[in-house]
């Protein structure tokens, strides 16, 4: 059946960006409407995708395949499983919300929306790519607009002005610059983010190319690779490490996280939302897609690395967030702390915890999206992100304060929000394997609570400085719509997670069984493996891609079909 849902979702923003090229910049409203319509189409289509995905059938659905280069074995190959579907939905929601959050951007509106749409569309592209080449292609494509978005529409961090005087410039050019904590300018942040992520991407690319080269299959097709590619000890380890750390830098796992708070702090609200909300998840998702699918055995051996590092992520991020005085730093570090939970859920390699990790990605996207949106709103109104100097804003902006509270609740995993379910699933599922980490994570929840509510108090409660008396609440429909949309999604899925849960389980269950059970058996039957590989390669030429999917070909019949 030809179902072009994925193409609609993916190309609506791209087309929107192209249409925007021809809309004159003076017509700001038209520009916004075009962007909103493009994002709206994408959003509706992803809701359809989400509800039309059949968890009983499982596997990759809505598959689209277009040969791109036969010689190199590249195909434009799209499809979603239970892991990709919620993330596509999250991206679409955040894109739609982000368009409205940026409604007040006056400076070069058109270009901003073009880059925002490209960013989001590329992110969506990663989540539905079934071809390593295009996965990497979209991955890079989603990173690069960040540079422009930060560099042009970003904001400087506090203390930047001191950097602009001659003394500061001299200092910036001196060797002492090395130890200058975040040079505070948006350009610095943009540069750092782009270099960091591109470097990570290159490392991951190396891994991907090694897979391509040494699999001997001459294809980038993930499904073929995961069925037939076989890597031996050291090579597998090297590839796994390259892929893991390459992609983990965007996730970001502990020592590779330092681009994220700086980047978040400098970015405009919608960009931070998309970035923290979905771009970070590209890391986890790509690790699942590449490392988990293609190298299950190595994953089982090496995933404790992630379990080890995630402790640092959780605690360290939490502590630094507690100390930070800049609202966006707090949220940024809290994001990197929360990503530790996802890593914990992934590392445990358990049905429940991996599903929890995927659900947490979705939940965190909404929660952190709301937080960044609200921090952006406060910044727009007060031109300050300095928590000690703010306060009492609830008088001026009750609606935003209320939303902020809900966002904090979601972020700490209050029951009734989808975060709670995700958190419980991760922790419950990981307990058997990593009890220590779970205890740390539970402490981390308390820590999250402490810093978020400290920020809540600092921003909204207490006496208000009179200089902020001109601040406005979000009154217009286009200001409220995105917040309400995210809150509604968070709470609705928190109260009715049934379908959501089934969809995710349809994606994670085969994966976990592969990693935990099927592998050793396959390793025993080396000869049979080779035969099967030849046979299935012949099959691959004749049969349509859908039919090749293991869940449709009854994977459990042959234990040797690695």
């Amino acid at each position, binding site marked *: 059946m030809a179902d072009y849902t994925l193409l609609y979702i993916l190309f609506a923003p791209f087309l929107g960006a192209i249409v925007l090229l021809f809309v004159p910049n003076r017509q700001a409203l038209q520009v916004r409407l075009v962007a909103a319509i493009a994002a709206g189409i994408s959003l509706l289509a992803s809701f359809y995708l989400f509800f039309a995905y059949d968890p009983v059938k499982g596997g990759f659905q809505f598959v689209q395949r277009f040969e791109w280069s036969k010689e190199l074995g590249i195909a434009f190959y799209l499809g979603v499983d239970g892991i990709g579907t919620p993330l596509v939905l999250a991206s679409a929601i955040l894109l739609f919300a982000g368009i409205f959050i940026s409604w007040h951007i006056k400076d070069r509106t058109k270009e901003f929306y073009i880059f925002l749409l490209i960013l989001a569309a590329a992110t969506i592209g990663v989540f539905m790519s079934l071809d390593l080449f295009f996965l990497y292609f979209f991955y890079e494509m989603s990173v690069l607009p960040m540079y422009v978005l930060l560099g042009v529409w970003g904001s400087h961090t506090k203390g930047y002005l001191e950097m602009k005087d001659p003394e500061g410039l001299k200092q910036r050019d001196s060797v002492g610059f090395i130890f200058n904590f975040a040079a505070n300018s948006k350009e610095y942040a943009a540069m750092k983010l782009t270099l960091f992520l591109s470097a990570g991407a290159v490392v991951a690319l190396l891994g991907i190319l090694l897979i391509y080269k040494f699999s001997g299959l001459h294809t980038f097709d993930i499904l073929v690779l995961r069925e037939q590619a076989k890597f031996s000890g050291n090579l597998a380890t090297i590839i796994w490490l390259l892929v893991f750390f390459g992609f983990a830098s965007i996730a970001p796992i502990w020592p590779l996280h330092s681009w994220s708070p700086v980047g978040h702090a400098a970015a405009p609200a919608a960009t931070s939302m998309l970035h923290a909300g979905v771009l970070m998840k590209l890391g986890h998702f790509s690790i699942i897609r590449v490392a988990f699918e293609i190298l299950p055995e190595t994953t089982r051996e090496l995933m404790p690395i992630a379990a080890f590092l995630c402790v640092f992520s959780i605690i360290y991020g939490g502590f630094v967030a507690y100390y930070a005085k800049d609202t966006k730093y707090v949220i940024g570090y809290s994001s990197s702390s929360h990503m530790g939970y996802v890593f914990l859920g992934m590392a445990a390699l358990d049905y429940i915890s991996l599903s929890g990790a995927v659900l947490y990605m979705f939940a965190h996207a909404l929660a952190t999206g709301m937080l960044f949106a609200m921090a952006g709103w406060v910044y727009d109104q007060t031109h300050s992100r300095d928590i000690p100097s703010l306060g009492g804003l609830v008088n001026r902006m009750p609606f935003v304060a209320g939303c902020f509270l809900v966002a904090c609740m979601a972020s700490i995993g209050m029951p009734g929000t989808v975060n709670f379910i995700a958190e419980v699933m991760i922790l419950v599922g990981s*307990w058997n394997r990593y009890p220590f980490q779970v205890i740390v994570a539970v402490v981390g929840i308390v820590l999250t609570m402490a810093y978020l509510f400290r920020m809540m108090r600092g921003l909204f409660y207490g006496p208000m400085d009179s200089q902020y008396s001109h601040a406005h609440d979000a009154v217009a429909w286009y200001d409220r719509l995105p917040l309400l949309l995210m809150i509604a999604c968070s709470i609705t899925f928190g109260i009715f997670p049934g379908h959501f849960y089934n969809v995710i389980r349809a994606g994670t269950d085969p994966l976990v069984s592969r990693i935990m059970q099927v592998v050793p058996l396959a390793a025993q039957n080396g000869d049979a493996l080779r035969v099967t590989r030849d046979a299935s390669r012949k099959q691959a030429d004749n049969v349509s891609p859908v039919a090749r999917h293991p869940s449709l070909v009854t994977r459990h019949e042959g234990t040797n079909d690695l």
Partner: protein
Amino acid sequence: MFELLVILIPVLPLAAVLLNGLLGSRYSHDIAHRLGWGSVGLSFLCAVGIFVETLRTGVAREVVAYRWIFGGDLTVNLAFLVDPLTCIMMLVVTGVGFLIHLYSVGYMHGEEGFTRFFTYMNLFMVSMLLLVMGSNYLVLFIGWEGVGLCSYLLIGYYYDRVSAAKAATKAFVVNRIGDAGFLLAIFLIFVNFKTLDYTQVFAQASQLSTGMATAIALCLLIGAVGKSAQIPLYTWLPDAMEGPTPVSALIHAATMVTAGVYMIVRNHVLYDMAPVALTTVAWVGGLTALFAATIGLVQTDIKRVLAYSTVSQLGYMFLACGIGAYTAAIFHLMTHAFFKALLFLSAGSVIHALSGEQDIRNMGGLRSKIPWTHALFLVGTLAIAGIFPLAGFWSKDEIMAHAFTHGQYVLYAMAAIGAFLTAFYMFRLTYLTFYGRSRLDHHVAEHVHESPAVMIGPLVVLAVLSVIGGFPGVPPESGWFHHFLHPVTVAAGGGEEHGAGFGLVATLMVVATAIALLGWGLAHYLYSVRTEAADNLAARAPGAYRTLLNKYYVDELYDFLFVEPAKRLGVVWDWFDRTVIDGIVLGVGRLTQSGSAGSTWIEKHAIYGLINVVGYANHLAARSWRRLQSGKVHHYAAIIVAGLFILVHLILVWWSGSSGIGVASR
């Protein structure tokens, strides 16, 4: 029908929350408060219906509202368990809640954010009902978190006051520490039983090892201690008095803080398997009861005295749980809800009458000015002090008697001293507030007025309940109440012993009454008799005055011997509380801060430094290379030519293996 009623109980307040929360700004306060108390009242009626049904059939039933998380190995339903314990809790929560809602209509009249207040209160009712009705740990936890959230919202109701905002955050954070323990307990339970349903867990509980049972029970205890404000996590409760008085009455006296007790009773199967945990519960309770009571002696804020008294009474309930008297704990929970709500609301009425004055040193002589409030407050005081035959007497006496008959003499002594102190400080409070010379500010005194009927009405009902609320538990240990709760509180294996004879029970009752009367007498003597004597003396003659002054020396002696040490102990413990316990909390905070500072330092100097080294190397390289970018076309052209030249030579070298000159000269 039964299912519908059960589901309606939390759904009705939820509907009110949604209406008031989403549309509250569209209509007047009148509609908002009617929705608020009306929904709770209907819930109460439903609860009564359920209660009657349960009384008739006497079986526990489970009602599944809907399947929440389901699939393979993790299934959680949003389900309600209706058994006698739930019935009692539902009645208490909705009943007292309904009265307090009614009261709030008068108390909060004209406040800014009136609708918001009712929204939060109703949300609290929903959460609390989920907490007591849930049939598995996850639903319990939802309610548990929900009440914490509502507590946070309502303490911080006056958000422009820094102290309120701080108290709210403190309450939430301390609660959350407890929640962390609770969450761990849930994981342990899930890992051991692969289910979170009460019935299945309790059915399989016997397979658990003692060590694991102890671990689970202790983790649960951490949660209970945080929620119920026991040592060492009780510090948030006195601060929580920053919220409006009805909130203090509902959340911080009658319902939410008793959630810990409810949880322990609900899980008594697990506790029965872990004697160590049980002993811990008992000692935590006993110590808290005594400790909080002594602090209560020296407080001057009317609500803070009541807050410490709440902590102390919760200690009694924990004590009861710890010695296995689960029914007594629930019994005391119920009577405490009646009289403590009464006390708080009366105190609220006093504050209302005095335009917000809360310091008892600035009160006095209010008996004649607000007679209704006085009478009601007195009933509450008598009830909490344990004067025969009011509600507090029966429940408290039962706990003490149980401790005595089970040989827990130390705990009994602690409870007895606590009871004495309770009587003393409560009557001190009464005397300072309502009797003696008026110490009111004259501006305030002009405006003193009795509260409106909408506030007094609920108080009267609560007063009646405080008087008769103890009778379901008569006679002790075998009253109607005990029979009703018997299926829940008695573990499958054993039963509560009825070892004590009538004589012993009667003696203990007499002793308890004596203790209470002693406390009353002392308070009467110190705060009523003496001051009047001193006043008369000052008026009449200096000689007689001196004589009485000598008598006063005796008082001084008594003071020195009994009151002062007690007071000093109170001061010391208050100091201890402020310095050591708050110090520990602060210390943890400081540690957090220094940890954060350390992390930030590493971030700044190590991680950023490393990255910046790379960046700086690039920077240096770029600075030298950018000279190439002069922007002049000539330079670019020259570079192109040079490049071309090099390229041509490279090609030639590649072709022929020698340089251009070499080729040319060949």
